[in-house]
């Protein structure tokens, strides 16, 4: 039966040729490591989010009078509704974790360097879109947590003179977070961001395929040695075939990802549900313990510490911009971060600062 289907497809679309050229003949470098699978894992994470998000749409009602109730119904009345919502919530946090880890490992292995500047930029923008996904989805359950976290984040643009207030107004659809904001964020979350994200992801994957996988994690690759005067695809003729060597690594990581997700759902079901996430939004009462999601805790704490709002938000915007254009700033040829003490020191300092601010923001 399977052979018949395979033959049927082969004579029509050249299935054997696709398998041979795109999977078996596709070579990956011999010194590839497990961290190279994180990009694939981000794609899997996105697929899980898309699937569970579509399932949740069947019962979710995007209106302030019904949003909280409909989410509670999904959790308590709809058979297995709790499972799909937990998968979506836990998955959103894991997806951001995977994307951040992917960027960190690419950074440490110096794989953002030429000719892969645009690949880095595409990945960086995809990470920002992923965080926007998380932030826009945060409001949808219409809880105290979602309402006030959105109030804080949509007020951030007001730090900038002249343009800040109009931007905040367009984001919220008025002076405050209201039903208009909920409609806008719902549209953003389910209709605007997904195609945008897929477009960036498509560009990112196209560039990886077009330029070729980076050869060596450390040292100066031949791409860095030669003058960059013409396009040349990196082919690893002496490398391993993608299937089964790398494919197996990817499958291991995918199963590890799903195992972590289901472990959290089973044994730590309240990990991403603080008390305020179970209280309906009250626009006239800011809760005493309001905190954003963990991935926004560091910027949140920094805003607390820096007394000047404009300076506090500008410094973060500059850091994000620097992160995106880093390959154009760092044109030094050496990829090995171990041979670059200044870069290594700055990276460790920023990482430690981020962790300190995260825990400080969580406990303050």
């Amino acid at each position: 039966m399977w052979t018949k289907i395979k033959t049927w497809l082969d004579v029509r679309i050249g299935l054997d040729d696709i398998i041979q050229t795109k999977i078996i003949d596709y070579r990956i470098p011999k010194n590839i490591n497990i961290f190279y699978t994180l990009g694939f894992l981000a794609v899997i994470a996105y697929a899980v989010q898309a699937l569970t998000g579509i399932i949740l749409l069947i019962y979710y009602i995007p209106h302030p009078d019904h949003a909280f109730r409909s989410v509670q119904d999904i959790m308590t009345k709809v058979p297995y509704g709790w499972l799909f919502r937990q998968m979506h919530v836990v998955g959103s946090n894991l997806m951001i974790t995977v994307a951040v880890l992917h960027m960190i490992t690419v950074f440490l292995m110096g794989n953002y360097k030429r000719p892969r500047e645009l690949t880095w930029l595409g990945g960086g923008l995809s990470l920002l879109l992923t965080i926007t996904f998380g932030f826009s989805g945060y409001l949808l359950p219409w809880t105290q947590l979602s309402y006030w976290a959105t109030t804080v984040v949509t007020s951030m643009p007001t730090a900038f003179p002249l343009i800040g207030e109009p931007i905040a107004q367009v984001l919220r659809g008025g002076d405050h977070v209201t039903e208009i904001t909920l409609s806008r964020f719902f549209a953003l979350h389910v209709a605007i961001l997904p195609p945008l994200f897929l477009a960036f992801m498509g560009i990112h994957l196209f560039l990886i395929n077009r330029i070729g996988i980076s050869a060596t994690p450390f040292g100066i690759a031949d791409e860095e040695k030669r003058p960059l005067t013409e396009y040349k695809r990196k082919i690893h003729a002496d490398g391993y075939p993608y299937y089964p060597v790398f494919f197996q690594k990817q499958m291991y990581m995918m199963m590890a990802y799903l195992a972590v997700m289901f472990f959290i759902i089973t044994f730590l079901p309240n990990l991403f549900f603080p008390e305020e996430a179970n209280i309906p939004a009250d626009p006239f009462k800011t809760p005493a313990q309001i905190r954003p999601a963990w991935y926004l805790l560091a910027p949140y704490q920094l805003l607390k510490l820096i007394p000047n709002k404009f300076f506090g938000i500008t410094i973060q915007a500059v850091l994000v911009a620097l992160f995106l254009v880093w390959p154009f700033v760092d044109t030094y040829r050496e990829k090995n971060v171990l041979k670059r003490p200044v870069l290594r020191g700055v990276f460790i300092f920023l990482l430690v600062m981020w962790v300190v601010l995260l825990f400080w923001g969580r406990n303050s």
Partner: protein
Amino acid sequence: MKRRRFLKIVLAFLASITLLSFVYSLLKFLVALPARTAETKKLIIRKNEIPSGDAKDIIFRNTPAVIINRPDKGFIALSRVCTHLGCLVEYNPVKQRLICPCHAGNFDLEGNVLAGPPPKPLTVIPLRIDGENIVIG
């Protein structure tokens, strides 16, 4: 002018008109807001509802506000919207301050910033005393 160049200019012109019209409409679409519920023009509260040293939360013109009966200085109405990032400040009768739960902004009972990141004082809402009533707005 050559035919090819002319066609390029016409194409660019038509594309510009299309793009401009679309972007203009989109911006107007995003900025225009549906009509809101009628705003409260004036709000009247009885003085004896707020004992000395106490406060009462109100909604005035769709904005959360607070009326405080200061022991020595009488009544004042302040917007509760923190000037930092929009959370609502809470009146603390023990500390005699208004405190923002989000980023720990502290205001005195005149609305001035005492501590924390808020860039400017709370908005003071005009009020007057009319006999036994407080008239806000």
